[in-house]
């Protein structure tokens, strides 16, 4: 039995504790508005019923806290991100340039590019081992099921890679395993798998992921460390005065005058910001490429 509107709101808040704070705020505002209006109306219509009874009638119609909470959660779950309008961007170029640090796509791409290095090694090893073993075992009778299992595993890995790409790069990828022919003899199944060009595309993707992953990793490490050292070294120089800021080319050492230090920090920050834009762009490109190779035609 809920005794007051405040108690209802408390319970609703408690039910929604795992939801987005914006949703909680909306839900509480809606409930308060409705319950207060409904209670005032029912008092006018039936002045003889007690406040508590009237409130419970109102709540009966509005829904219990957990029913209301589940309605909000359901809508939140079903709302497709594309349906939610993006805020109209009227910001200037400058603001948009620096807003990259608040862009989840850029961070997702950065994370993906780091993961791609590890994944690339795994995929490459798997593909090379599987393929060479499949070929060399082909002279044995058990070579056949081995080749089939390997080719099926390529599909599984392609699905997994697709999930990673979707989560981090925001490109819609398959969520279900591709249909594979179940019946028939082993030889027929192998023939189907071998003649399916999607399998070869996926295998190609797995091979290429190693060079791509390496490239991404080198790019991230180089750009991030370069821009961070530009930003931090003048500050360290201020403490240690050991000639941290300087360029060494062969026997020549060049130390910029301290008056340029602020410029170095600014340059480092600009480089970092530009790198984030580059990562985001690479991420989008890789997403398109993954879609071309991992999604069946």
């Amino acid at each position, binding site marked *: 039995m809920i005794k007051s509107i405040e108690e209802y709101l408390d319970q609703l808040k408690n039910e929604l504790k795992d939801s987005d704070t914006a949703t909680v705020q909306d839900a509480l505002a809606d409930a308060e508005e409705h319950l207060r209006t409904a209670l005032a109306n029912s008092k006018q219509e039936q002045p003889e019923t007690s406040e508590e009874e009237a409130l419970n009638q109102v709540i009966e*119609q509005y829904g219990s806290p957990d029913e*209301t909470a589940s309605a909000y959660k359901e809508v939140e779950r079903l709302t497709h991100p594309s349906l939610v309008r993006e805020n109209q961007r009227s910001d200037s170029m400058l603001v948009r340039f620096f807003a990259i640090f608040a862009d989840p796509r850029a961070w997702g791409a950065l994370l993906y590019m780091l993961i791609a290095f590890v994944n690339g090694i795994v995929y490459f090893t798997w593909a090379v081992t599987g393929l060479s073993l499949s070929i060399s075992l082909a002279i044995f009778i058990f070579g056949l099921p081995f080749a089939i299992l390997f080719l099926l595993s390529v599909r599984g890995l392609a699905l997994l890679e697709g999930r990673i790409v979707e989560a981090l790069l925001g490109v819609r990828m398959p969520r279900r395993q591709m249909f594979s022919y179940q019946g028939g003899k082993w030889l027929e199944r192998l023939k189907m798998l071998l003649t399916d060009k999607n399998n070869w595309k996926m295998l190609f993707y797995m091979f290429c992921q190693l060079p791509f992953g390496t490239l991404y990793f080198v790019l991230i490490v180089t750009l991030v460390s370069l821009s961070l050292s530009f930003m931090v070294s003048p500050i360290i120089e201020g403490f240690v005065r050991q000639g941290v800021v300087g360029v060494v080319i062969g026997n020549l050492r060049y130390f910029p005058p301290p008056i340029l230090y602020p410029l170095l920090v600014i340059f480092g920050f600009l480089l970092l910001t530009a790198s984030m834009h580059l990562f985001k762009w690479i991420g989008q490109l890789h997403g398109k490429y993954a879609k071309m190779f991992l999604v069946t035609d």
Partner: protein
Amino acid sequence: MVDSPTLTKKFQKELNAGIASLVLLSVLSNSEEPMYGYQIAKLLDDYSGEASFMKQGALYPVLRQLESSGLLRSTVEPSVSGPPRRYYEITAEGKETLLVWQGVWKQMKSFVDKAIKGA
């Protein structure tokens, strides 16, 4: 018998999920003036009569969602008694969408009717 109240409740909920948007858009399209949540809930109560199809509380998240997709817009106005009220009205985009949705609903209705009758 397998059919338990929970199954029926679940079915009702799933049906409501799609229909609520259509109903709310229609109500606001028919109304001359912007309406607030309680008003809409009252009107729907009159329509549904004895049977209650959905809890009033479930209307609000749908209203919010329609607003965030640009089909409705809302303004908050202080009220004489109680907390400020959020008034909703349909946008031009909402009206266009409603026309399409009504078409979908008509087709869906005749399809379901035929399936139930089996003719």
